[in-house]
């Protein structure tokens, strides 16, 4: 027994010793690309990474799903092989994040816009298709809404059925399944659909000029009386719940609608169905651009970064008929894509004032 114990102790010592010896090794080289960031971009970035890994001599990049904010924080924590080379984001980088990057020595960042993602409100195919406006979405989901009698004051949301909002809508109880506040999809939905509908009430729009925070709290706060149900980050779960409950609507990304068109259907928003073409043309109002950001200092230091960029922006990936479109990414219009390719091949650092 004591011999066994000694052997175990020796092995443990080797493991600990090995671990202590590692930092030097880990810091000196990394032969794969390290990517972090948005869980919305994750399904697209991973396809590119896999194709890149299989068709070139480079290793397949490692992609962590950390969320846009978490990714940018890691990305901006410094230059060097211990830090990620690329971060995916379902929104544009903020000035505060650019400042954080600069403070940590990450000076030149290349911005790559990869395409668009639509956010859909969908229900089971066994029910009728909803035709909503953004104003109706706001009235159905906000915590406080303008008084139904038309006066300019806010009341706690009184609407229980869709038909209470507009008699032409079905007389079904409002029941919407959506992502929690930590999700980028929720951020985008609130900003594009809720705020879009909120602004249609002129007097609320006027508040924006006076008190921005008050405007945000009116337009961005979702009701908490059980009509909106937080269903977790897992969009598949929402799709499954919609199948089981034909009365409910769900909020998720377009790629999940695209993969499950036999069981769920997207609602019309402002007269536009969430189709591939409508989102690509910019006609569907609830859509957002997706990005990734590259550290210029890492392009030469880490093998394969330049080639990964080339693969991502190539016609077979990001083009109109590329494999990313098959996975549900809405491609950029041609001229915009050419501009992205130019910026990427020249590794032009971004500035936030552009656009």
């Amino acid at each position, binding site marked *: 027994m004591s011999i066994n114990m000694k052997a175990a102790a020796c092995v443990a010592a080797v493991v600990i010793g090995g671990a*202590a010896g590692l930092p030097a*090794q*880990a810091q000196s080289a990394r032969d794969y690309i390290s990517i972090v960031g948005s869980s919305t971009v994750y399904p697209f970035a991973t396809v590119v990474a896999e194709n890149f*890994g299989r068709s070139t001599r480079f290793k397949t990049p*490692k992609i*962590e799903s950390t969320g846009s904010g978490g990714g940018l924080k890691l990305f901006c924590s410094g230059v060097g092989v211990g830090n990620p080379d690329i971060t995916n984001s379902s929104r544009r980088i903020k000035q505060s994040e650019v400042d954080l990057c600069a403070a940590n020595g990450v000076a030149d960042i290349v911005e790559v816009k990869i395409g668009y993602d639509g956010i859909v409100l969908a229900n089971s195919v066994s029910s009728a298709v909803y035709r909503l406006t953004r104003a109706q979405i706001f009235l159905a989901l906000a915590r406080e809404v303008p008084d139904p009698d038309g006066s300019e004051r806010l009341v706690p949301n009184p609407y229980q059925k869709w038909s209470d909002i507009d008699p032409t809508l079905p007389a079904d109880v409002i029941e919407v399944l959506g992502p929690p506040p930590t999700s980028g999809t929720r951020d985008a939905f609130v900003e594009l659909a809720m705020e879009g509908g909120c602004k249609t009430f002129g007097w609320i729009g006027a508040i924006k000029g006076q008190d921005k925070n008050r405007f945000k709290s009116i337009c961005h706060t979702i009701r908490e009386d059980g009509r909106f149900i937080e269903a977790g980050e897992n969009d598949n779960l929402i799709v499954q719940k919609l199948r089981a409950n034909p009365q409910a609507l769900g909020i998720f990304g377009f790629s999940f609608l*695209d993969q499950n068109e*036999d069981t769920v*259907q997207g609602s019309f928003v402002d007269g536009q169905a969430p189709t591939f073409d409508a989102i690509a043309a910019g006609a569907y109002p609830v859509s957002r651009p997706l990005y990734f950001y590259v550290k210029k200092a890492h392009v030469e230091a880490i093998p394969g970064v330049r080639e990964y960029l080339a693969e991502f922006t190539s016609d077979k990936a990001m083009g109109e008929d590329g494999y990313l479109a098959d996975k*549900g990414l809405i491609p950029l219009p041609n001229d915009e894509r050419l501009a992205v390719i130019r910026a990427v091949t020249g590794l032009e650092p971004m500035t936030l004032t552009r656009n």
Partner: protein
Amino acid sequence: MLTGEQTRVRVAASLARRYRQEFLFRLFGIVSIVIGVGFLLFLFTTIIGNGYSAFWQTTIKLDVMIEESVVDPDGSRDPETLAAANYARLIQDALLEVYPEAAGRRDRRALKSLVSTGAAYILRDRVVDDPALIGTRHSFWLLADDEVDMLIKGHVEAGGDEALRRLSDRQVGWIEGLQAAGRIKKRFNTQFFTAGDSREPEMAGIWGATKGSFFMLLVTLLLSFPLGVAAAVYLEEFAPNNRWVDVIEVNINNLAAVPSIVFGLLGLAVFINFVGLPRSAPIVGGLVLTLMTLPVVIIAGRAALKSVPPSVREAALGVGASQMQVIFHHVLPLAMPGMLTGAIIGMARALGESAPLLMIGMIAFIVEVPNSPTDPATALPVQVYLWADSPERAFVERTSAAIIVLLAFLLVMNATAVWLRNRFERRW
């Protein structure tokens, strides 16, 4: 004072009630067990019912002509040229041979999408391994696309409105034609057990995550078991009885109840940011899980030491053994089975953990199978989570299949531990 008769009467009066109480208590126990077993059965039937079909994969037999002009135009047989060739075109040509009527660009795309994009890479590897195939015609069983796989397995319907389906009527017609010609067969899904992650469900495998979990638990076991046993022996047998030892004991007991995400944060701060170990590596995962399991191992170890009868110690001391000899020759061997049980509980919990791994970057897409504890890797529960979150329908069955693998891993681990325990077990 009761007389004998009075006692008898009183006992007879309460007897029925006491029997009834006992009966109810037994009934309660049986009902609890039935409910527990019911839940377990429900869990197993849903998981196995959803997952077993992932162990088979639809393949399509195609006669592929390995054209030298496509694969190796300059005839050099250089592996790099061979690897860079356009194998997808060879597969497309083979499909067109079966269905020459698919002429337009749109039709050809639709036809091509019946075969997995991964099939070209598998064909490439075959040709690179065996260049003699070049210039010959050979039939290959190629991986079908996940949509075709789902249709063949009956997870999606071919009927209904065409616009709402991922496969068009045309494609369904082609698939039925291939089936009638005996060109479609479900084969055992070896890919699932040998490959790393992939975004194509038919290419995705669990081996990368299994190895990641294995390396992580190896580090955890090698560190937490010796450390835990040493700490338990010291605290139980040698430590003086003073306030410091009390403080340490209370802290160890508290640590066992700390939520695992806290250990993840600690691991991020210490092992990655301070020591500089790489992110996403099983060694960091193993170190974090060691922190998590150590208190469990120590507490179980101390309980096992306590349960060794004092007579054993006293007898050994009585025949002149030193304290050290008493512990290593008598107490520890008797306590070993209990310590192993503690280690099993700790390791089983570590295997199922995903929250602390979030912080150290192991929730990641990693295609390459890790070969050492410092290569980037994920773990089994993380793989389950990542697949459950993927939009493709075919990942639903693969998620359940991954859970089956996770349970099998746990079973093998526990069986090994039980076997070890029985070997060490000594009766007195």
